[in-house]
Every structure is written in C-alpha cells, then in structure tokens.
C-alpha cells in the first residue's frame, strides 16, 4: 500500500502547485472591492448599523443566512433520523452514562462558568450589529457552556422537547420576518422597521431581531446535536443482529 500513498502524494503536490499558481494572480492586500465598496458606504447611512459584516450577512445576503439556518436544522434532523433517537422516551427513567467520570475541577469550574458563558453568549448575539460577533458566534458560545455541563456531569440531560420548540419557533421567526416584508408590500427580508440612530442598541430595524432569533436557534441546535452525540449507546450486540426490514 506504500505505492498508493506515494502516487497520491505526487498527485496532490501537482494540484497544489497548480492552485497556488492560480491564486498568486489574486494579489494579497490589493483593493479590489466592487460591491463591497457600496456595502461599506451604504451601511451607516441607510441601515444605521455599525457592523458591516452583520449587515451583509443579515440584510444584503440574508438569503444565504436563511439557507445556512436551514442547513443547521437539516443537520439536527438528519442526525436524529440517522441515529433513530426516540424523542418520547425520556431519560428520567434511563439516565445515560458517560464512560468516564469527570474530575472535581471540571465539575466545579463548569458550574461556575456556565452562567458566565450564557451571559457572554447572550451579549454577543444581542449586540451583533454593534460589535464583532452576532447570532452564530453567540449561539456557539452558549452551546459551549452547555457542553461544559454535559462533560462535567454524567447525568446532565437536556430536554429535547424544549429544544424542538426553540428550534422551530426561532426558525419560523426568521422566515416569518422575511414573509412579513412581503405582506407589507416590500421584498422578502426587506427592512420594514425604523432604523434609529447609529451605534444605538435599538438600531438597524429588523436586523437585531433576526440575529437574536438566529442566536437562539444556533444555541438550541448545537446543544441538541452535542447532547445526541454524547448520549449514543454503544451496545453493538443488541443493535446489529436485530436489524430487519421494517
């Protein structure tokens, strides 16, 4: 099998040199902004939002963000369908066991850091339009807080019912805000609220609202995914031999 490794190495090196030749033509650091220049000029004036990246993600290219939120929802649904997790059988009767008990330091630190992480995550996604960050970043921070607890305590479980509700409602809020734009006679996802003053918390119209919904959704989904993956039972014998066509 050594020969196969060498052939692949040579092939990849060849592709590497072709690609780097291609990318060298894209000069590093050159100012080539085309649509981006218009984005930077319009954002503080028309949208009154300080963070241009947030404006691009939620407003100018909001459709991509809708697709991305769908991808997260898909990952969560796909995971559940592949692993056949039954949502009704809840874990109060049958607590899942991690294999190794975490040390005392992790448990104490987990309890202490958890509220701080939730606070930080909430701050990040509420202020997405003013400071670096936003819905996705804040949601990931919150999910990390939950991960801490999931690792520290063996019997900690997240209620999947709650997660389903938050997921669906947050996703529907995003799509609903977009459709509201349609109902009010404008375009899908167009900003239909007042925009306020630059650098205010209540600026930017529907942009902070969308990002807050995204923050909740990302936090709920990542926590759900982590919980599912951490609680799979690895009894091979009961699962493989009983497989038959349903």
């Amino acid at each position: 099998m050594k020969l196969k490794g060498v052939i692949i190495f040579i092939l990849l090196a060849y592709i590497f040199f072709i690609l780097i030749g291609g990318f060298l033509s894209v000069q590093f650091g050159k100012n080539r902004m085309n649509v981006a220049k218009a984005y930077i000029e319009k954002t503080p004036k028309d949208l009154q939002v300080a963070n241009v990246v947030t404006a691009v993600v939620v407003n100018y290219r909001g459709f991509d963000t809708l697709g991305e939120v769908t991808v997260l929802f898909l990952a969560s649904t796909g995971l559940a369908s592949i692993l056949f997790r039954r949502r009704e059988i809840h874990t109060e009767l049958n607590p899942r066991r991690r294999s190794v008990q975490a040390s005392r330091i992790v448990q104490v630190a987990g309890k202490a850091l958890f509220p701080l992480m939730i606070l930080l995550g909430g701050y990040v996604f509420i202020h997405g339009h003013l400071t670096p960050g936003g819905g996705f970043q804040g949601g990931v921070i919150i999910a990390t807080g939950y991960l801490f607890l999931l690792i520290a305590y063996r019997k900690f479980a997240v209620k999947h019912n709650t997660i389903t509700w938050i997921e669906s409602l947050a996703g529907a809020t995003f799509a609903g805000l977009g459709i509201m734009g349609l109902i009010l006679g404008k375009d899908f996802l167009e900003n239909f609220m007042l925009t306020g003053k630059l650098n205010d918390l209540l600026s930017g119209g529907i942009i902070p609202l969308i990002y807050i919904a995204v923050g909740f959704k990302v936090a709920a989904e990542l926590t759900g995914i982590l919980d599912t993956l951490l609680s799979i039972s690895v009894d091979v014998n009961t699962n493989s031999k009983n497989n038959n066509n349903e």
Partner: protein
Amino acid sequence: MSELTINQILTYTFYGTSLLLIMIGFYGVLTKKNLIKIMLSFSIVDSGVNLLLISIGYINNGTAPIFSPSIMEKIHKGISVQMVDPVPQALVLTAIVIGFGVTAVGLALIVRLYRHHNTTNIDEIKNLKW
C-alpha cells in the same frame, strides 16, 4: 529571480498555508483507513478553505469593517479610514456552518456503521460493491 517583496512573502504565507492545509486534509481523506480520521481530515480541509477565503478579503492597512464610535470620530475629523472587505467574512460564516453540518451528519453515519459492522476500518465495510 526577482526580489521577494513583502507582498509576495505575505501572499505565499497566507495562500500557501491554506492550500497546504487543504492538501494535507485531502491526503488524509484519501489514505487513512479509520473512519474518524477521515472525518477529521475533512475538518482540516474545511479550515484550509475558510482561511483561504478570508485571506482574499484583506486590504493593506485596512481595519475591521465596524463603524465603532472611535472610527466615527476619525471620519468626522476628516481622516480617511480604509476598511477590509466584509463580503468574504460573510461567506466564511456560512461556509463554517455548512462544514459543521456535514461533519455532524458524517459522525452520525460513522456511529451507525460501527453499530452495524463493529469496526471503524473502511476496508472492512464493503457490503456494496459493483
């Protein structure tokens, strides 16, 4: 060979490192036998691609594209402020999330495969052939 300017060094560093990461990841995907190592290699590829996308957006002497109060002051004083391209950052946000979604589904599939075949070696999972 012409002299290496700072710009060229930077270009080689950023683009070269990202492409190197991508190639290392591909090598891992194509040669490793363990399923989990294959998924990890894909994560490396994703990191490389995202790094590459962001590097394209850099502009010399540019700052973060956020109109914070301090930058607004500078603008009012008449100092011109150069900002970095915000579009690749938005693209990378989406790409990271998509990469995460694919990794999650891939890991779930690995769990199913392990339950069924009791192995994580890709050579032994060959129920479907021609």
